[in-house]
């Protein structure tokens, strides 16, 4: 059989591919290498370095808060002081956080602008460089852009606002919607949940407040962007999302910080409330600079027939400790955590999930995939709790770890407590290493070692990434490519 002529194409070109050009136009502004810049900003309000009752009073007075909030903060401060560092189970690296050096509040004012034109130039150029206004036009229902302690910009599209959806920052919410806010504030995550939730409760500023009225389904995602600009800064946003009965909402958050030589602290508290039949999807793609301690408490409560899904991607930071959870409070409630973590040299991703079953016929799913590169360390910690008095609860936990180099590290600590005999629980875990043969195979097809590694890692997380909105899956792929680029020598 003779070949048709059109199949005999030109010989293969001998051109080495160089794929280092990915940085220039980040899709959703979370590319850390693109985020590694800082402009001088003149702060009108600055609480100075270190933490004290005076600092807390200062923050509260700048925000012109009601007395009960100040009291709440001061009480939380005492709880923070009383709580020990959780180093009996967590890494000793926590002891390297110097609470006296951190700046707890920096802002140019507490009223975010509604149009980008009104945002002060020195802040606006940061967000423009990160591409935030552009994304907003393209695919978002609303955006809140936080710069250090306060939102510089906050806007929700008219079509969404007309449905009665509230989307603002916590400072505004406390002023304008105190009754809604107070009802759930600190109810899903009590102040004393852990040392860092107490710290957040004492000094919180910014973060999103979302209320979606009964039966309203928000079609496009709402997005918040958290930017740390100042050195030695601590960002303590507080987010509360309430989806009323039958409501549906998707929220996405992204974040970056410049790379400073000193450490930065990001310690958020995020509470989600999904009332009867509501659905909340919360997506985080996080790519902090590798000097950031990222210690975040995230938890949801799901009432009858409600569904909460956390999609949590952690790339970057020095240490991340984050275990999104769902309290399955109502019958047939469903909770899901999809977690992807990538730990590179000098990074520790200590992530996982918590599923607390508190009603009959509740279902929880945890899928966690971690990648350890170089001397990076990834840790999975999971809690699944099903008490004896319940019936028909289901949990499925799957955690897979991929090791890139022979000195990479992964640990898995699943804690599953199931009492009673009408439940179904499944746990699967795997650890694999990228094999030399697989890399050689890909190299033989013309991919460089780094491209081959990157493709192997993207393949490993592919089934999870497919669940992301398009813009985020593209961005995540790019971030993985960037991380893998420097991983082979």
């Amino acid at each position, binding site marked *: *059989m003779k*070949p048709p002529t*059109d*199949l*005999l*194409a*030109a*010989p*293969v*070109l*001998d*051109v*080495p*591919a*160089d794929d280092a*050009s990915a940085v220039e136009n980040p899709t959703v502004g979370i590319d850390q290498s693109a985020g590694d810049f800082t402009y001088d900003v003149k702060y009108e309000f600055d609480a100075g370095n270190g933490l004290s009752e005076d600092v807390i009073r200062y923050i509260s007075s700048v925000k012109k808060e009601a007395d009960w909030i100040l009291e709440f903060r001061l009480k939380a401060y005492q709880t923070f002081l009383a709580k020990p560092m959780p180093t009996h189970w967590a890494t000793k690296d926590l002891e390297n956080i110097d609470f006296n050096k951190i700046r707890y509040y920096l802002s140019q004012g507490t009223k975010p602008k509604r149009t980008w034109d009104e945002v002060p130039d020195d802040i606006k150029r940061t967000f423009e460089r990160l591409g935030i206004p552009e994304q907003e036009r393209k695919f978002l229902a609303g955006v809140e852009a936080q710069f250090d302690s306060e939102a510089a910009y906050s806007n929700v599209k008219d079509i969404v606002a007309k449905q009665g959806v509230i989307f603002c920052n916590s400072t505004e919410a406390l002023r304008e919607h105190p009754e809604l806010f107070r009802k759930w504030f600190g109810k899903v995550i009590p102040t004393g949940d852990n040392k860092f939730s107490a710290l957040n409760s004492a000094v919180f500023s910014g973060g999103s407040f979302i209320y979606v009225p009964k039966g309203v389904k928000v079609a496009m995602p709402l997005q918040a962007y958290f930017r740390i600009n100042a050195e030695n800064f601590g960002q303590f946003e507080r987010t509360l999302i309430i989806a009323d009965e039958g409501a549906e909402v998707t929220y996405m958050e992204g974040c970056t910080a410049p790379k400073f030589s000193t450490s930065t602290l990001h310690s958020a508290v995020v509470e989600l409330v999904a009332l009867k039949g509501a659905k909340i999807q919360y997506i985080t793609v996080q790519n902090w600079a590798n000097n950031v301690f990222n210690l975040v408490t995230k938890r949801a409560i799901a009432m009858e027939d409600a569904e909460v899904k956390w999609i949590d991607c952690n790339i970057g930071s020095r240490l991340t400790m984050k275990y999104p959870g769902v309290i399955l409070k109502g019958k047939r409630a469903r909770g899901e955590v999809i977690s992807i973590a990538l730990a590179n040299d000098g990074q520790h991703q200590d992530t996982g999930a918590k599923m607390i079953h508190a009603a009959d016929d509740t279902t929880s799913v945890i899928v966690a995939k971690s990648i350890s590169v170089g001397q990076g360390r990834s840790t999975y910690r999971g809690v699944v709790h099903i008490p004896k008095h319940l019936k028909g609860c289901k949990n499925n936990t799957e955690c897979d770890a991929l090791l890139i180099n022979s000195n990479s590290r992964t640990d898995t600590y699943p804690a599953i407590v199931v009492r009673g005999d009408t439940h179904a629980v499944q746990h699967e875990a795997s650890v694999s290493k990228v*094999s*030399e*043969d*697989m890399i*050689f*195979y*890909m*190299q*033989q*097809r*013309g*991919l*460089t*070692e780094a*491209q*081959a590694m990157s*493709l*192997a890692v*993207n*393949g*490993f*997380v*592919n*089934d999870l990434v497919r669940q992301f909105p398009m813009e985020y899956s593209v961005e995540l792929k790019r971030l993985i490519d960037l991380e893998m680029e420097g991983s082979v020598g």
Partner: protein
Amino acid sequence: MPSLEIRDLFVALAATPDKPIVKGLNLTIRTGEVHAIMGPNGTGKSTLSKAIAGHPDYVITSGDVILDGKSILEMEPDERARAGLFLAFQYPSEIPGVSIANFLRAAVQARLAEGEELDATAYYKRLYSKMDMLKIDRKFTSRSVNEGFSGGEKKRCEILQMAMLEPTFALMDETDSGLDIDALRIVAEGVEAMRGDKLGVLLITHYQRLLDYIVPDFVHVMYDGRIVKSGDKTLALELEAKGYDWVKQELAATTA
């Protein structure tokens, strides 16, 4: 005319560099030619192909491999690939989560100049035409590379990659192993379709069977790390009839 020259090549496992497996092999392949290397198991056939492709488990202790007048020994495996060398693996690796379409797309993209973007429409058009040529179902390319594939599917996937990457020289390592007769025919037809004056092929095979479908221009018998006999396609038939012992005896007689 491009050529692939193997000059007095010695190859050992990287772990045991003082124990050569390939011991002074010479062979020159030009585009337009199909060479077959036959030989008993354990004689160094697969070692030869992996060493030429740059597998890290093997070390070339002396000799040279020259592609278009340039030694490739200092090149990384991916550079050798982009220079026009293709290895069809005896045991292709699985790449979980990476579809054939995406894998090939990355491989094609890797051959473009820096800053040049792959034309996705043209890529898929070309991919589908190659698949039609190889009688491969469209659904095939959405599957993860080699994951859960039968022996025949793995080999067909290798041939598809070869068709898309259009190498100057293809080393085909035991491409017939694990194939039933129908699969063998399809694979052989694929290679025959690509055959022409822009491609040189080195077929490594244990059996004559494949050579019924891909008729070689040259046949070489490899034994104990060397080529000990070369001839045309009739040599393969002779081998089939007389077995490898015939070569061994002949060799013993000449060296005695």
